[in-house]
């Protein structure tokens, strides 16, 4: 997350008129909109999963890509969303609406408490503390089987009637993803978003300029937690099943890989990364028994050779390629 990268982002953005970029986005959304008329049910399922993880990855990117903090406990919020739907609806007979409200409230409170504790330390300490908190909750979710169903999880979570068939769920998931994407775009263009990037680039300077670094990071954690909670709720409703593995560090590693593959600090990156990893996962896991081995190797290769991810690397290439010429800033 260097300064030069930020500069390059600006250069690339300047190289193409805003209308063209918006056109590409609209085209992709248009294709996605007509896809259910051609694609089979299985393809739709993979895409819905990718959309849900896309929202999750966007939330993670808010922390890693834009605030510059590496949380290893983000699965906590994903799992919280899933269980906040599952436990009240299945075990206590609540309506879905009430459960969603409860989940959102819990998510904000949890983010505020854990954020104010873990943001007291920085760097790798923060990563370790968030990992430890999330894993403790993971273990508790396994042990407190009276509420959570233990290792077996909770099954048969009813989705509301209007999300009953796969095509409706597909459109709803797409709608949420696009809304979150556009919302984050607005957020990052706002003074708050600009300040987050300033903190990422140089925390000491942002603090010296009078910005409340702690408060900005905390708000970023609350927002990221909220979006991850929403994604977790979607996951629970789509699979109508939750299990403690949603809370495990492997879930965080998944979303971290998606963000890194696509490109942290870009908005398209995490969504693209979620799609790529989801498809790779679906395809490769049917070929390899030890898929995690491949997964880990991909991880290491990306970290060492492609630290900027697909979108970051393509942006680099666009800037360097002669035809693009040194783009003048308008």
């Amino acid at each position, binding site marked *: 997350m260097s300064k030069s990268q930020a500069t390059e982002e600006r250069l690339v953005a300047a190289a193409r008129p805003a209308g063209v970029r918006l056109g590409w986005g609209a085209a992709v959304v248009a294709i996605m909109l007509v896809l259910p008329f051609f694609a089979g049910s299985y393809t739709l399922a993979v895409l819905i999963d990718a959309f849900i993880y896309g929202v999750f990855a966007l939330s993670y990117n808010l922390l890693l890509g834009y605030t510059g903090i590496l949380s290893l406990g983000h699965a906590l919020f994903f799992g919280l969303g899933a269980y906040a739907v599952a436990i009240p609806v299945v075990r206590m007979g609540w309506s879905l609406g009430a459960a969603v409200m409860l989940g959102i409230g819990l998510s904000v409170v949890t983010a505020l408490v854990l954020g104010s504790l873990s943001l007291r330390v920085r760097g790798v300490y923060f990563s370790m503390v968030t990992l430890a908190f999330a894993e403790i909750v993971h273990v508790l979710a396994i042990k407190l089987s009276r509420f959570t169903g233990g290792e077996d999880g909770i099954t048969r979570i009813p989705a509301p009637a209007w999300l009953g068939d796969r095509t409706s769920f597909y459109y709803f998931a797409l709608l949420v993803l696009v809304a979150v994407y556009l919302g984050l775009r607005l957020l990052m263009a706002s003074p708050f978003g600009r300040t987050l990037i300033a903190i990422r680039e140089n925390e000491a300077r942002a603090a010296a300029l009078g910005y409340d670094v702690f408060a900005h990071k905390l708000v970023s954690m609350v927002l990221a937690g909220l979006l991850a909670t929403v994604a977790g709720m979607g996951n629970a409703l789509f699979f109508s099943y939750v299990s403690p593995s949603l809370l495990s560090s492997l879930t965080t590693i998944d979303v971290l890989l998606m963000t890194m593959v696509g490109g942290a600090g870009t908005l398209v990156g995490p969504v693209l990364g979620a799609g790529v990893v989801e498809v790779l996962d679906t395809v490769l896991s049917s070929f390899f028994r030890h898929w*995690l081995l491949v997964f880990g190797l991909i991880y290491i290769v990306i970290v060492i050779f492609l630290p900027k991810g697909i979108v970051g690397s393509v942006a680099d290439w666009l800037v360097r390629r002669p035809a693009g010429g040194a783009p003048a800033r308008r």
Partner: protein
Amino acid sequence: MEITLPLLVNLVLNGLVLGTLYFLLASGLSLIFGVMSVLNLAHGAFFMWGAYTGLAVLLATGNFWLALAAGAAAGAVLGVVVERTTVRFLYGKHLQQILLTLGLMLVLGELVQVIWGPQLHGFPVPAFARGTVFILDYPFARYRAYVLGAGAAVLVLLFLLLHRTKLGLIVRAGVENPDMVQALGVNVSRVFTQVFALGAALAALGGVLAGPFFRTAWPQMGNDLQLYAFIVVVIGGLGSVTGAAVGSLLVGLGEALMGFFYPEVAMAVNFGLMALVLLIRPWGLLGSEADHH
């Protein structure tokens, strides 16, 4: 159940045994961070490789001492290989380091399953340490007494290594001020490899010792135990071996006491301990304030 003194003694002894296992993991984690500022998320994998290697040697030879030596050696070799081939290229790049060790954690963890399969393996208690002794009328597994002895021995040896040898001097100086150590002409690169190997060997030794304690080796044991090591270093302070020892004792005792009275929520006590430390001394009980920035 009524709390009596003999019961309390028994629980404390069991807490110390758990603490010993946590210490073997946490001390290496802490040393590696202290000297190289690397948070090694693959540390639990070294622990697990130690356990599985030890088990293989134990089953082949029937000699537990040989299993201990082989496990520790496997850890050291793995540590050298990992440091030389990957970690060393990313010193100073914290984000990439964490991601790299995450990848290593996945690869090393999955390799164990490739070789030994995903199932649980029974880990026999060595013949000389079977049976129970009675301490104040409470049964105490004889093997656990051996673990306590081993833990004390490692603590003393580690202390001697850090305070009586040249490597120890360099390591302690490196924790204090790495730039100065390099400026004074120490071959830092070699010391880094040695410290990484030492940390990995300690973890792997812990893995072999943990085998007969849990009576099993399982493919998630590395990550399961690594969690405790993280909690320990958050409480004790990264970079401090004494901090790792104190943290291990606290977490081990908390686990044993809470596990006896409220087994379902034993884990919550660690949550509370960590929260408390973060509130009063964010850099850990024995960590140094300067390091946590």
